[in-house]
């Protein structure tokens, strides 16, 4: 070991100093320990930090990362377009879904499953979601006696409202045509061109 260190020119670790201050250190040390004891003892009369949970409930900010929900757009339609980005962002792989399509071309999840017994509430799915569909909410009371009850299907996840991001509708921005929004009707879109025209 030492040969190895020497070869690499690394100085050996010096031995720890032996009680440099001698008696003074001992006396001082003794009293600082007593001081610690006294100060800790005084905490007997300090205010409790404990929030007495089921009786008292803490305030949680809206961006707290609790139960995951699927929200709807301002028109009341499902926001989720089954793009699979939340599933691939999930570090524990607890999101699975299958894409389906309505006759008018909207994508939606045929089924959407989150296994909350695996979820770590990291919020990566929400960050990855391009449509604000998946959102984490401040609800944390999800404990169950049976792990199987922690598997949430789409009907358990889908809520009626828009969640934290009111007003956003993916299909108003994206170029995909759906019922009531033909080609050229999305934001920043011109009406469809006539490719047979040679006019500029």
């Amino acid at each position, binding site marked *: 070991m030492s040969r190895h260190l020497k070869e690499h020119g690394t100085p050996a670790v010096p031995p720890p100093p032996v009680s440099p201050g001698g008696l003074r250190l001992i006396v001082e040390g003794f009293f600082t320990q007593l001081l610690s004891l006294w100060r800790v003892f005084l905490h007997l009369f300090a205010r409790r930090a404990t929030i007495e949970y089921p009786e008292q409930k803490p305030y949680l900010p809206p961006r707290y990362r609790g139960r995951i929900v699927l929200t709807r757009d301002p028109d009341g339609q499902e926001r989720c377009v089954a793009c699979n980005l939340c599933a*691939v962002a999930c570090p524990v792989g607890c999101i699975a879904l299958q894409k389906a399509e309505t006759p008018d071309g909207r994508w939606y999840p045929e089924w959407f499953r989150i296994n909350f017994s695996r979820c770590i509430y990291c919020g990566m799915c929400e960050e990855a979601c391009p449509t604000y569909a998946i959102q984490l909410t401040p609800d944390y009371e999800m404990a169950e006696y049976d792990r199987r009850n922690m*598997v949430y299907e789409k009907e358990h996840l889908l809520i009626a409202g828009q969640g934290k991001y009111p007003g956003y509708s993916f299909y108003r921005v*994206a170029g*995909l045509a759906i019922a009531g929004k033909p080609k050229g009707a999305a934001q*920043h*879109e011109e009406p469809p061109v006539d490719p047979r025209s040679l006019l500029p």
Partner: protein
Amino acid sequence: MSAGDARSATAPLVTIEIDGRRYRVDPRRNLLEVALELGFDLPYFCWHPALGSVGACRQCAVTQFKDENDTQGRVVMACMTPCADKTRIAIAHPDALEMRASVIEMLMTNHPHDCPVCEEGGACHLQDMTVMTGHAYRRYRFHKRTHVNQDLGPFVSHEMNRCIACYRCVRFYREYAGGDDLNVFGAHHYVYFGRASDGVLESPFSGNLVEVCPTGVFTDKTYGESYTRKWDLQQAPSICHHCAVGCNIMPGERYGRLKRIENRYHGALNGYFLCDRGRYGYQHVNAQGRVRHAALRRDRGAARQPVDADTAIATLAGWLAEGRVLGIGSPRASLEANYALRALVGADRFHRGIDAETARLDDLVLETLARGPAQIATIADIEQADAVLVLGEDVLATGARIALAIRQAVRQSAYAMADAAHVPRWQDHSARLLAQEVKSPLFVCTPAATGLDGIATRTYRGAPQDLVRLAQEIVHLLDYTQPRAPGLDGDTIHLAHTIAEALKGAQRPLIVSGTGCGSAALLQVVANLCTALGRSGRKPWLALLPSECNSLGTALLGGPGLDAALARIEVGEIDTLIVLENDLFRRVPAPRLQALLMRLSHLVVIDALATPTAEAADLLLPAGAFAETDGTLVNYEGRAQRYFQVYVPEGDIRESWRWLQQVARARGQDLGDALDALIAGCAGSDPRLARIVDAAPSARFRIHGSRIPRQPHRYSGRTAMHAQRDIHEPRPPQDPDTPLAFSMEGARTGAPPAEIPIFWYPRWNSVQSVHKFQQEIGGPLRGGDPGVRLIEPGPGGHYHDRPGYRAPAELETVWLYELFGSEELSVRGDAIASRVAAPYLVLHPATAARLGLTAGATVQVEAAGQRWQAVLRVSPTFAANVAGVPRGLPGVPTFATGTVLSVREVRP
């Protein structure tokens, strides 16, 4: 090797400098190809290794310097710049970087902001290139141009707004694949890629648009119906089961459903493209009505009841112990499955699952290939042929990928012109402009019109007997020691002369034929043609198409045909008949077969499909479809190729050979309990099959101790996808048969070419990443192209005797083939089924007139006691006197080749 490079010549290497480092490169390549091959990430769109360069997208900009002292440089397009000696370029030069960044920003101005709802997302070349150039934020504040989409039929979805106008689609569809219903319309930034009006894309290669398109304009419609991102697909290398070409494919699965087929590059075979039958023919695997549990009929006449696998195995073992057993194999089952059945019942009780006539044809194909002197042509070889004779085979319907290769072969004279004019072959547009309509010779001699007629030098229509006569005349013209054909008219003799001259004048003459006509004489005369060409000093190439994906494999395995088996049943010698992945109703006329099946005590069927044969079974064992099993197929060129299980299906479905292995075990016979035992046994059974062991590494193969994962490293939802069934995540299925794992874990790099489960490379998420797996662009995969050739052509031999000529009888059957419909498996999927024609009958106008029939009429056809209705088609390009019947089409019964029909019109 890019479009049309002649592989024979090698040019001396030159030195070029990229980003200050020197490389020795091939001067016949362009800078883009070379840079990609050297591992540089240079963005591009319009260049495609098979389509060449046109310089349309301006994305592959690099800075080129005049000489050593030039510090300014100028921006050039790498794909349009040849690798001259001492070329100095910089990919990382600020000018080039800025150019590339602004080009992609311009391309993205009209892009519709819909990646989450785009099937290309996550496997998109446009996404990759956008990330590569660093264009992250949209600065363009104005409005986007939009287009209206078209309905392009059951195969391809259309979303025109995503287009970046690289022109790859029309270049592939029109110039490469010869389609004419897809075009580009409009001008400037209005350009529109689509059909003149909504409608089904007619080209049999339309599915390739999905892979050719660098963005999401053309996407796979069947995949979109139950879409899953590429990173979520569990994939394994597989082989197409829909014809004898044996294209390499990459099926992808999720949630127990086969989602799509993607092309798996093979340098010598399919290259970058598949036909639509191969790409969309997979849906039968997902069929709702598939049998997933073993079923047993306990009493004659009763319904079959599901039984567990052990009971089924014990039952079959019991029946086997009683003796009087016969096994019938199948040309659509793997070598291993056929071998396992033969080993279980004994060689003297094993019959090939084809009628004696087809068996004879397959044997003839094998014999002709093995005898020589013709070299067996791979598809890459076919593309190099400078004179092609298609004899009797409608290749576009029976082996479509070969027809696409023949389309490239006729460009050989154009390449010669380009070479003479010093136009590089990758300068695709220039080479095409230079050649105009010049084509190298192609002769299509078939009973009916084919899709290749448009590029053929001459066509000839005749019944198989007539084709034999024509070929015999060519043999005579090549080798005057051979007799002339009897009774040919002057035009035909002149044609024979033209063909003989073209073949003699070619460097690489190619003869394409097959078993499609059902004519042994035709195959013999093809062999004679090769012999004659060989004796006249040419080195001919030969491509012979058998009818099914493992026809040659079963021919190598040998055994008598189906007729002998039926004879044995007829005399009451047999109690138990085991049918392996075969629908006998497609092989034997139904009345006869039904009568014979009544004589059996037990009919055992091992199959993945709910065929009429399976319906009649007393014991039905559910076998895995192609994506659920492993095995080895032998394609038309005698190449043994292994395909691998993609996923473990639900229920008791297991590989047919595993059922047989387990039955053998129950009887105390040892056929092993994994694939390798059968491969070894099969290889040991015949020296011609010995090399199948080398088709892919064995199950013991490991990379640094690890298996090769079937799932991509981003595979999502592992802890949720089974949670509704079992909250305790079940252990992934183990795979005793292959070195692949049903897992995300394992070795992702260095997989042998036969076992690459996904084409993916950092920063290259789309199929364009395939160049990272190739030795050179367009060349073989690293480690060589997968599969081993079992047949080495010999030096040639004697001529077959000249077959006697017999004029075809009036209304004698001539087989016709449909790409969508003639093949058993693919028609069982919705997408292909929607393209299948109703039963029809083709007559020459003169014949029709003589019978008093009119085109479009519904006729009742009778053959050997079987009647069916068909729509009459009258075609002047069809051989006179005979009747064309689409073989295998749903609604057309089975009967022998050459049966004389009787036709009468049905009046409602």
